[in-house]
């Protein structure tokens, strides 16, 4: 295999980030609409699917933003799951007594407390980051269950559930939505697909979804365009160098991890406070914190990337929920199309091994699509998890991980 000279390729043909993002979006929509046309599965690009995807992608997006803040400051945050669980309880409690906005604030606060605990363990006491994260997941679960038994059981009569709580109102861009709906119903190739996907994103949108989506550019601006962000990221790349330049590493790590917990708590709140979601329910987080972390890693520790990751997982989840096994099979078909494009690209770049791997993967997926009419219903709910593993296996090697991630840092000690 021939190794391209990095100095040449990166300077010669490098699209700006927004252009590559747009290109990916176009490719994704193209593949999906082709697949939905060829397999006769309009559900692949229906407004239902994209609306469900938005709802299901939100908690993952918020967890991923939380992961971004912590990991950019050099702290691994497996504890996102526990912080989300704390957030679900907090938001249900707050929303029951004070309405949605109080609920959201309480969810953020509870997640933040979890984040602070992680920061104390990891930054002050140099505990291994994963160990502390596992402990926080245990603790978050225990605390939420304990509090639910204590506070919710007398009201709802069930220690695993909260009483019904207020939900966010949703808003639609009515005019746009109707127009897109009409376009979607015409079932024209590509045009209707785009209309369907867009319509789901402008119909019944909650303020929380808007805030969450705004947090992506906001995180980018804070972390990459301000002095504070530069300092925070320098703690994740080389804390010793940062300290020598007068950056208070401990303080920046504390802020980053606490913010990370706050975002995770918000993610928990988005499970409780959105129309269509359950109220507080035991085990409702169900690994979304981990998936958020995976989405962030998949997105190469960048805000735009994690948005793509969250969209992918939200879409896979929304599709299996609204379309079932047949839709997942159609997705397999779409993946084959995507792999075909990738293989061609790799062949042009003369990456023979990567191309061969792509061909093998495509063959397996096509075989699954060809031989099955219906996938086992027990396995379909785990579509996003399978997608995660496959995507990471394909993407992981080109990642640019913060240099000092997971390392223990003590002021004045060099290593």
């Amino acid at each position, binding site marked *: 295999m021939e190794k391209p000279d990095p100095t040449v390729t990166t300077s010669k043909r490098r699209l700006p980030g927004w252009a590559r993002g747009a290109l990916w979006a176009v490719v994704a929509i193209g593949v999906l609409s082709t697949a939905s046309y060829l397999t006769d599965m309009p559900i692949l690009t229906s407004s239902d699917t994209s609306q469900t995807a938005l709802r299901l992608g939100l908690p993952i997006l918020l967890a991923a933003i939380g992961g971004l803040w912590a990991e950019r400051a050099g702290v691994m945050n497996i504890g996102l799951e526990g912080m989300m669980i704390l957030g679900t309880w907090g938001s249900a409690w707050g929303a029951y007594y004070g309405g949605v906005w109080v609920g959201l604030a309480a969810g953020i606060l509870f997640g933040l407390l979890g984040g602070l605990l992680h920061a104390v363990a990891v930054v002050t006491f140099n505990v291994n980051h994963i160990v502390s994260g596992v402990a926080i997941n245990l603790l978050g679960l225990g605390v939420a269950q304990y509090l639910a038994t*204590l506070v919710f059981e007398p009201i709802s009569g069930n220690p695993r559930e909260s009483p019904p709580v207020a939900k966010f109102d949703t808003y639609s861009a009515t005019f746009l939505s109707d127009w897109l709906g009409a376009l979607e119903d015409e079932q024209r190739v590509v045009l209707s697909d785009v209309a369907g996907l867009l319509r789901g994103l402008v119909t019944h949108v909650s303020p929380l979804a808007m805030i969450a989506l705004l947090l992506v550019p906001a995180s980018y601006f804070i972390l990459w365009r301000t002095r504070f962000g530069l300092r925070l990221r320098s703690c994740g790349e080389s804390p010793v160098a940062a300290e020598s330049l007068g950056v208070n590493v401990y303080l920046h790590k504390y802020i980053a991890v606490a913010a990370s917990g706050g975002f995770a708590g918000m993610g928990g709140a988005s499970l409780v406070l959105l129309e269509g979601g359950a109220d507080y329910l035991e085990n409702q987080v169900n690994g979304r914190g981990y998936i958020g972390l995976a989405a962030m890693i998949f997105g190469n520790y960048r805000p735009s990337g994690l948005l793509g990751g969250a969209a992918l997982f939200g879409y896979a989840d929304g599709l299996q929920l609204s379309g079932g096994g047949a839709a997942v099979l159609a997705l397999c078909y779409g993946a084959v199309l995507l792999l075909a494009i990738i293989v061609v690209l790799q062949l042009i770049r003369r990456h023979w091994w990567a191309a061969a791997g792509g061909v093998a993967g495509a063959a397996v997926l096509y075989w699954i699509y060809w031989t099955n009419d219906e996938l086992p219903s027990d*396995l379909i709910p785990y579509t996003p998890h399978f997608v995660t593993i496959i995507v990471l296996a394909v993407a992981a090697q080109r990642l640019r991980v913060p240099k000092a991630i997971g390392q223990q840092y003590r002021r004045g000690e060099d290593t």
Partner: protein
Amino acid sequence: MINWRTALLPPALAIVFAMLLSSVALLISGANPLEAFATMGAQLFHGNTAVSTVNLAIVYYLAGLAAAVGFQMNVFNIGVEGQYRFAAVVAAIVGGWMQLPPVLHVIAILVVAVASGALYALLPALLKVYRGVSEVITTIMLNSIVFGIVAFLINPEQFGVLHGNNLSTEEIAPSGRIPGIPLGEAGTLFGFVVIAVALGYGYWFMLNRTRFGFELKASGESKTAAAAGGVSAKKMTLAAMLISGGVAGLVAMPELLGRDYVYAMTATQGYGFTGLAVALLGRNHPAGIAFGALLWAFLDRSAVSLESIGIPSEIATIMQGTIVLSVVVAYEIVRRADLAAEQRRVGRAGNGRPASVAEGGAV
């Protein structure tokens, strides 16, 4: 040389701290902490609680060993959870289908369990070594996927049988069971305890008395240093992950071959995560893991009694979480204190002048 103070003080501190913290939680909820702890302690002498605690501890011990093998090589096998459940359902299906003479049947089931546990660890191991994918993420995904796999395999369309309202695998014939050790009134101890003890010894022997164990530990301490000594970090990661998965495959066996004989949808989950905590508590030492497993099992078993005096039994989960976190913090504090004491000693030895090289001073 073992420094007893550094080894034993932190867990003791952690337990005390966890008790203090849960006392605060209990006081906030309006309960009497002393009464709660007394009830939990007294429960141990109630009926068969003591034996069932030990039985549960055997399971936790196996899970702890599985996690500890990974920790030695700096691999975080969070997937013990998925690996043991996958192995349990496969072993139960194969064991129910096989017809073999008594001892052979048991051995065959155990082999199948170890192999399928290792198989489920193979994918994350390969992805970690050859694609650089974090084993933490892949194993977590596989932990979720295992729910689907268990449901799929226990489905009557595949290998399941409907017992009343409960789906489970085919029952394993008496020839494939491991007899328990009857202790009269107190209950029956799992016969698997013998295998667990042997495994603990084997783990200790492998790490401290074999070349492979040395290479594993060396590679976990510093990949570059070990590579310079001719130890391939990739190979060691792969080996640690597979052994860890293999041991994880045994986790469900005491209950499967000693009590349940079938693997059902309702089988208890979460042993894998407990194993991680127990291994941390025991600092990856076989005796320490045994202690951690017993403590954990005690908290789980005796927490039930709290319901009778009107306290949510989830307080036990809070205690467990606090213990894990405070035990690692306590180790760090004791380590720092030791380091400071060492520095003071060196400082005193110098009598005010800079220490010579022989005393540990700078060149």
